[in-house]
């Protein structure tokens, strides 16, 4: 397939791995160099192509918090189910949010219990359902980082313009920069460099990450999602380390412009405002890390339209996702890994999605044993 196969070329990958090994040897650390990929899309590519096993031992990839489905806290899932269970409501959601467990089950279970929950591929599909069912309340379960924020925002603006009164959004959009900062501020951090999220950066540009380089002196390379993109970005991080540099570099220049996407940014600032704090599964509450709809769009805000319990359900005490996310622990070193916490009955965020680091390790370890 054109524009795809070129980025999966085995010979080029071998060259990159050789260069990465050479640089890692030149840097010569006693313990493995930790590089965090922030985005779940990168984690997916790393597992999908077996990239981890191709890298030399000196490189350890830490799979960061960037799977927006994994980091949804149980309380928000409970709220979502509460909305979906109200009479007359059609709840629309992206497919992979269906299996995320709340404190009393997932959306998949709520659907089996009779809630009208439908899978959509974009918020505009949800708006179409609302137009088709004027007698029903159609709620879109909006989630994701800046990548999916603009499409939700534009859909809300369209609903406003066309006066679609039975459409609303349960807003769980989160923003990546405060989260990277929270990780950088943790005292036990050993991460030496970051692969920056390509699709988020397509929207916000590369400037918002400057603090990572300037203030924390860590290299950050905004990376694409094909396997050669990931390998080249790892190589670029290592080159910065070898040169003693800490900069924000853009490997994904074919998609990401330095200033981001102006139209998308306009839509974001028109529709959302920052929440003072937002709860993350595995990381706890992070200041200014989530957004909600502005007052001007209050009537499209499901949280104001429906009685939402809003209960805060703390992560189970035994769960050590936070330490795994920061690279302090390997998945199998967590207290509940493989016992209380398995892919069938996940306790923590990282076991929820097949992209979660723990789910991936579990599959390998359980079967290889």
């Amino acid at each position, binding site marked *: 397939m054109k524009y795809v196969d070129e980025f999966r070329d085995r010979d080029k990958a071998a060259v990159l791995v050789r260069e990465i090994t050479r640089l890692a040897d030149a840097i010569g650390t006693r313990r493995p160099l930790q590089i965090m990929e922030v985005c779940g899309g990168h984690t997916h590519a790393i597992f999908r*192509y*077996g990239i981890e*096993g191709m890298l030399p031992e000196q490189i350890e990839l830490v799979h960061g918090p960037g799977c*927006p489905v994994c980091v949804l806290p149980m309380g928000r899932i409970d709220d979502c189910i509460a909305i979906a269970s109200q009479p007359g409501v059609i709840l629309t959601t*992206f497919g*992979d949010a269906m299996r995320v467990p709340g404190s009393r089950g997932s959306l998949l279970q709520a659907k089996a219990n009779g809630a009208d929950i439908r899978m959509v*591929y974009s918020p505009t*599909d949800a708006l179409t359902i609302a137009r088709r069912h004027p007698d029903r309340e159609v709620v879109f379960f909006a989630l994701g980082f800046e990548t999916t924020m603009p499409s939700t925002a534009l859909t809300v603006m369209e609903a406003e313009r066309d006066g679609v009164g039975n459409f609303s959004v349960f807003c769980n959009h989160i923003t990546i920069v405060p989260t990277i900062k929270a990780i950088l501020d943790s005292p036990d951090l050993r991460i030496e460099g970051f692969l920056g999220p390509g699709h988020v950066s397509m929207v916000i540009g590369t400037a918002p990450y400057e603090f990572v380089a300037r203030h924390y002196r860590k290299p950050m390379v905004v990376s694409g999602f094909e396997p050669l993109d990931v390998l080249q970005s790892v190589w670029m991080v290592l080159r910065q380390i070898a040169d003693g540099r800490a900069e924000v570099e853009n490997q994904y220049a074919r998609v990401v412009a330095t200033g981001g996407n102006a139209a998308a940014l306009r839509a974001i600032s028109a529709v959302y405002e920052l929440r003072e704090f937002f709860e993350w599964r595995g990381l706890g509450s992070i200041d200014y890390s989530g957004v909600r709809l502005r007052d001007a769009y209050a009537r499209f805000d499901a949280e104001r339209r429906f009685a939402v319990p809003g209960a805060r359900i703390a992560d189970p005490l035994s769960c050590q996702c936070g330490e795994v996310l920061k690279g302090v622990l390997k998945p199998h070193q967590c207290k509940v890994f493989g016992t209380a916490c398995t892919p069938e009955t996940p306790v923590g965020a990282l076991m929820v999605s097949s992209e979660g680091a723990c789910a991936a390790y579990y599959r390998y370890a359980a079967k290889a044993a």
Partner: protein
Amino acid sequence: MRTVTLSHGGGGKAMKDLIDAVFVAAFDNPLLAALDDQARVPMSLLARYGDRLAFTTDSFVVDPLEFPGGDIGKLGVCGTVNDLAVGGAIPLYLSCAVIIEEGLPIDLLHRIARSMAAAAREAGVQVVTGDTKVVPRGACDRLFLTTTGIGVIRTGVELGAHRVQPGDAVLVNGVLGDHGSAILAARGDLALEAPIESDCAALHVLIDSLLRASPGTRFIRDATRGGVATVLNEIALAANCGIELDERAVPLREAVKGFCEILGLDPLYLANEGRLVAIVPAAEADRALAAMRAHPLGAGACRIGHVTDRRPRLVVMHTVLGGQRIVDMLVGDQLPRIC
């Protein structure tokens, strides 16, 4: 438009007329036309084909009922024929039980019955018994179909996952994921138009040539729900062996590749309805492939991997990039990813 009503399920004249006009007319054979409570088959006739009876059943609830490359009727016949054939059986007789939601257009029922009849004729099997129920709106989704099949296993043919051994070759008969992609696209809620047809086909003739060319064949299974990935995991578990795949050798249609790229799906888990996985001794692999390629349903046959004693019970993919990953059994359905 004439539709099926609850009176068609009442056991009276309306029901008899519907069954006669739709099913008896389409399937048209003396065993069925007798309309007894059972079809009667002489044992001596069965014994001519082999020494063991093969018996299987399958239900079909596909949505939509008609899709590019087939419909629920053809699916039922081919699926049941394949479930018999992968065990080395010669498929002979099928049953057809339908549960119909009131309001189903009778024309659609005619089309499905004729399609079943055509598929049965092509496969050389007869639909010899059946049942019709009509349920109120909402009690089922338009039409559910259950087909049961009887076949006879040839004397001397012995297939089973326990016979799989390290060194064996893993073969498939053509491009993967067509059926799953065609169904997803035909549902229409993806707003994606994909020129993909279901691969729905009866494989018993192909399997017959495969078994003649490779008498040592260990195991065959049709890779339906859960796709090739699921079948291989089942084999690895049952045989207590590892299976290693070469991603570059996995045959995929360009349109299916693109479809999966856009939706974040893995084609190895997509359903097929005319594709099989065969495990054959390495020494017979070339002959098995040549035999399959000589048949239209096996023209795209290829070797995608091998069985190993390393990492037992695990399916490992050597990726196109040169890395390795575990190909696991899914916990549930494959769900599209947002990121």
